[in-house]
């Protein structure tokens, strides 16, 4: 995936922010959490980041970030020129580098089209290093809108049959749009993988066949963080938070190896040798 090594805002170079759509096909696999956490992680690394909620009618990025009571204008208002672009973005409570462009809650997904979204995002590209667009579930107009203006894509899946099936479909659609997706495997449970009750990282990679940019383990801290409206990356003890920080690092071009999630204990190696593993 192409990475923009953005300069600081006070630099003389004008870099255009990289627009990345975060999508999945399947609902409930963690797109919004991923968008919020990657946004927060990038901001912690000093990158000016805008997270855009493209889930019109079912907005949730505001809630994950704890900004639900600060919304005045939204993406649809910007697209329809009801307000100025800078009036609609909301600065995060925890970081000066992180901003949110919320979705409208009362409209439906076809209230705007791809062209309008692309034009709206254009206003922000010179202001931010990264623009992460949280896509709705599905493959209809909402998904198409979210992909408008994007240069690359992150596909979020869990290691489960329906999620992988939908992710596979979306990979095909993104390839047709010329977007080269990278994969995030969310909610991996290492114990279940060891017991043979969950597909492993290698299984999912093998099936989907795209570049893997990160794995996030199942972590109760994520739910607690959502309850509090603070992305889990601000909890240094959270394994999920650490994983999102690593993924953000990779987005910035850092070489961060993936932790080893496969079962390589002594008895498992013996079992594999004997052909019963």
């Amino acid at each position, binding site marked *: 995936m192409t990475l923009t090594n953005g300069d600081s805002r006070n630099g003389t170079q004008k870099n255009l922010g990289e627009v990345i759509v975060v999508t999945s096909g399947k609902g409930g696999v963690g797109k919004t959490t991923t968008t919020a956490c990657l946004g927060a992680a990038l901001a912690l690394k000093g990158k000016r980041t805008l997270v855009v909620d493209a889930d019109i009618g079912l907005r949730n990025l505001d809630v994950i970030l704890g900004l639900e009571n600060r919304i005045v204008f939204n993406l649809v208002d910007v697209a329809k020129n009801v307000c100025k672009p800078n009036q609609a973005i909301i600065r995060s409570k925890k970081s000066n580098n992180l901003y949110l462009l919320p979705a409208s809650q009362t409209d439906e997904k076809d209230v705007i089209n791809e062209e309008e979204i692309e034009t709206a995002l254009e206003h922000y590209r010179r202001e931010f290093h990264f623009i992460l667009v949280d896509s709705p579930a599905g493959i209809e107009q909402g998904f198409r809108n979210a992909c408008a203006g994007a240069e690359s894509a992150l596909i979020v899946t869990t290691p489960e049959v329906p999620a*992988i*099936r939908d992710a596979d479909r979306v990979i*095909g659609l993104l*390839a047709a749009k010329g977007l080269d997706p990278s994969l995030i495997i969310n909610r991996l449970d290492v114990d279940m993988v060891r*017991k*043979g009750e969950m597909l492993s990282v290698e299984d999912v990679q093998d099936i989907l066949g795209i570049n893997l940019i990160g794995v996030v383990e199942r972590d109760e801290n994520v739910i607690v963080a959502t309850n509090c409206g603070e992305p889990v990356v601000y909890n240094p003890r959270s394994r999920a938070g650490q994983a999102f920080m690593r993924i953000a690092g990779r987005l910035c071009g850092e070489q961060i190896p993936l932790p080893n999630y496969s079962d390589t204990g002594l008895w498992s190696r*013996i079992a594999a040798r004997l052909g019963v593993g």
Partner: protein
Amino acid sequence: MFDGLRRVIFGNKTSSKQLAKSRLHFVLVQDRTGLSAEELAKFKTEMVDVIERYFVIQKQAFDISYRRDGETTTLVINSPVIVRRQDAVHHEAGTRKFKKKKHELAKPPPPPSMPVASNT
């Protein structure tokens, strides 16, 4: 560690993950090719007929999968073959891979030209 020890002592029955993999394999071939289960079954039968003109194969172990490697997609046909020799019958497993771009799937496959490894 004890899971590995358990597997060494008791062996490994089919795990739910293996079931998940084979079911995904089944639905993804249909989803990716756009062929229904009936059409895929017909394709398999016709493939087996073609291969049987040249080889003796183990029909029950015959398998077709459709794998994505980055930008190319590959039709993978696994066809265990029984190679007859003069005095004895040797059972050999063979794998043929037909690499095709998606739009070429409509054309008939070329005859298999796989070198079969032999024990003698």
